[in-house]
């Protein structure tokens, strides 16, 4: 047995040394594109970082005269500050939080970080759908900054597989209730975001997305609180903003109940974030239905805004930064 243990230890030493050499020579390939972007921002000491999802870049509305996407409008609105964006479709606070930890590891402290708080984040689509957990990127960022960095690729590949499997199982069976009425499973209701839904389906989708009480155990909220806590005593100013919601459409389907629930959830989020002295702008009821954009293949109330909405939002964010 001792001979076996000696051989095994020797084998592991050879592997560790070889892997260290490979890691040193090919470090860059371990980073995702967004991580490389953040590395660049850190080197350039970019002043403003804007986290976001598809709302920052997508122009849905064919009738817009000004087709400038939201992130460019915000960039123009922030004045002389240098500007960077950490954006990809469906990104959420889970990944924003991982990026703030990564930026902390890089000792990168931008002047401002803008973090959207889209109420969609708190539905099962973002909370449970495996594709929206970004396990690969989050685990990669966690291990690349640890002593296990040379083995980050291996750890990611092997950790992600079972994490994704567990997430998939939870998501496939997640029931959705409207109070005590069973509406279906999360995957069934998520379909309504892909096809033009009927009035009944729109109603179910609205309930699924907006009507659940957000509580402090919600992982997305915890991620937002982590961001707020990280920069609480830092020179970096974090501007959270609750994204506009097409409340008029919501009320037309669900009545006052929709407004009441919206206010309950937004107040809860604001209270939690403000305990860390975070600045929270609430645009949830700022825009009317004519500021939202529609695509023929996405559901209503997806949060995408048209030219009018983008101009309003970018002006407000710019004003906040220029204050």
């Amino acid at each position: 047995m001792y001979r076996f243990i000696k051989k095994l230890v020797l084998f592991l030493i050879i592997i560790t040394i070889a892997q260290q050499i490979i890691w040193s020579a090919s470090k860059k390939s371990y980073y995702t594109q967004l991580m490389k972007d953040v590395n660049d921002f850190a080197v350039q000491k970019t002043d403003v970082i804007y986290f976001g999802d598809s709302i920052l870049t997508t122009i849905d509305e064919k009738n817009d005269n000004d087709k400038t996407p939201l992130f460019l409008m915000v960039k123009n609105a922030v004045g002389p500050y240098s500007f960077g964006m950490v954006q990809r479709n469906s990104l959420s606070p889970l990944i924003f939080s991982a990026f703030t930890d990564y930026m902390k590891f890089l000792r990168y402290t931008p002047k401002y970080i803008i973090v959207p708080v889209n109420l969609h984040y708190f539905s099962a689509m973002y909370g449970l759908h495996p594709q929206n957990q970004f396990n690969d990127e989050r685990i990669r960022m966690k291990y690349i900054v640890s002593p296990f960095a040379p083995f980050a690729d291996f750890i990611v590949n092997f950790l992600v597989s079972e994490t994704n499997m567990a997430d998939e199982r939870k998501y496939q069976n997640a029931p959705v209730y409207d109070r005590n009425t069973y509406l279906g499973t999360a995957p069934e209701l998520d379909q309504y975001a892909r096809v033009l839904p009927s009035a009944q389906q729109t109603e179910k989708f609205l309930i699924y997305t907006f009507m659940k009480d957000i509580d402090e155990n919600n992982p997305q909220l915890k991620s937002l609180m982590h961001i707020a806590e990280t920069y609480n005593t830092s020179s970096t100013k974090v501007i959270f903003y609750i994204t506009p919601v097409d409340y008029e459409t919501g009320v037309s389907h669900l009545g006052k109940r929709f407004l009441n629930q919206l206010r309950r959830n937004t107040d809860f989020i604001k209270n939690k974030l403000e305990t860390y002295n975070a600045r929270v702008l609430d645009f949830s009821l700022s825009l009317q239905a004519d500021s939202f954009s529609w695509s023929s293949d996405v559901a209503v109330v997806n949060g995408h805004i048209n030219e009018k909405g983008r101009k309003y939002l970018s002006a407000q964010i710019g004003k906040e930064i220029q204050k």
Partner: protein
Amino acid sequence: MLFNSISFFIFFPVTTILYYLIPHTYRWILLLVASCYFYAYFIPSYLLILFLLIGVDYVAGRLLEQTRGKRRRYYLWISVLINMGILFVFKYFNFFNENLEQLSRFLGLDYTASSLQLILPLGLSFHTFQSLSYVIDVYKGKQKAEKHPGIYALYVMFYPQLVAGPIERAGNMLHQFRERKYFDERGVTEGLKRILIGLFKKVIVADRLALIVNHVYSQPNQFSGLQLSIATVAFAFQIYCDFSGYSDIAIGSAKSLGITLMENFNYPYLAASFQDFWRRWHISLSQWFRDYVYIPLGGNRVSTIKKYRNILIVFAVTGLWHGASWTFVLWGLLHGIYLIISDMIRKISPRDKNLLFMTPVKTVITFACVSFAWIFFRARTTEDALYIVTHLTDNLLTVTRDVITFQFPDVSASIFRANGGIGLNRTQFQTTVGLIIVLLGVEFLTRNKFRLKIPLLINWAMYVLLTLAILNMGTSVIQPFIYFQF
């Protein structure tokens, strides 16, 4: 728990070390607890189903041994019905129900199918068959009933082969759990090497090929005949590397504990006939069907028509075992037809004595036919499968002309750029092909090491490189083991 997970990399050494540290008398308890933990890692509540089946078959085995006369048959049938009943409910009920609904619609009757929302317990098909083989062998007097409930439970639940085989026989396994196992350096080393090879096959080769297969098979009508053909051959290697990789890890894990599991694959794509293929592919399953379905139906010892009937039944059921879908049944029937045709040809044409060149030709033909059948296995629907089958040779003349006239850039463009490509770019594809060649070389060396006398340095270098490949060349899109769905 997945074999390709960090949890397993902690679970495996801990279990193995404890196994050799504790006295032999208690080892079965350790393995049983470890196996329960391994299985419960997925969905703990499904342990109850496993315990139910273990309880039923343990009792059935004891009763079968103690009873004489007609009653023995009742005990056998009760065990078979409970095992197959549970399998039916979890795996086949919805399929049966949907077909019944379609049939009733066709007949103008009013029947609406309501489906059961049940997740198939992992490995149900495997351990059901393993349990049934035990009960049937006890009934036939080939196997003594196991008196120790813990040892019997371990036979069913032994973690290396619990979820995706090999489907073991009681005669091979039960005595091994009783034998005192001493730490054997060679055995443990061989086991670890086997695990490395299995991980390489799965993580490096199979998951890479999956990128092509998933991309093309998700929307086959978007791709050309050449791309469909490449994806089909890619799947042939994907499923081989995925499943044999899993078996390697299972066999290696067991070997590290001093337990020998049966081989499940033996270079199946070197088969020069369909009979030979089924002696090399998923050996444990084909032997199970041979012993418990084909031979009881009469096997070869009946008229030719009945023999062919038996073959079709066995392979239709083999297809159905893989999944509750007509595509799997079609896959199985196709193999049955292959065997029937090759049997007919053997009867008609004289034996090809000493025609050495015939073996490679027959190997290529067998591989092509097997790959063709994989289309039905992999396609999402029957419609997709039929589309692929009828479009495989689209633009075949153009491609042939380009190859003959050395217009390789055109061939390359038609693979990697046409229709958005096949999911891997040219460099990635070439790397994958290179890795398959490396894999075949490693397999050849490891299986022939005693004949070839590989120098120690070369041996070490091979495994160091394999490990480094696993550490650095895995894809970030990990696919579940294909056979987990069965």
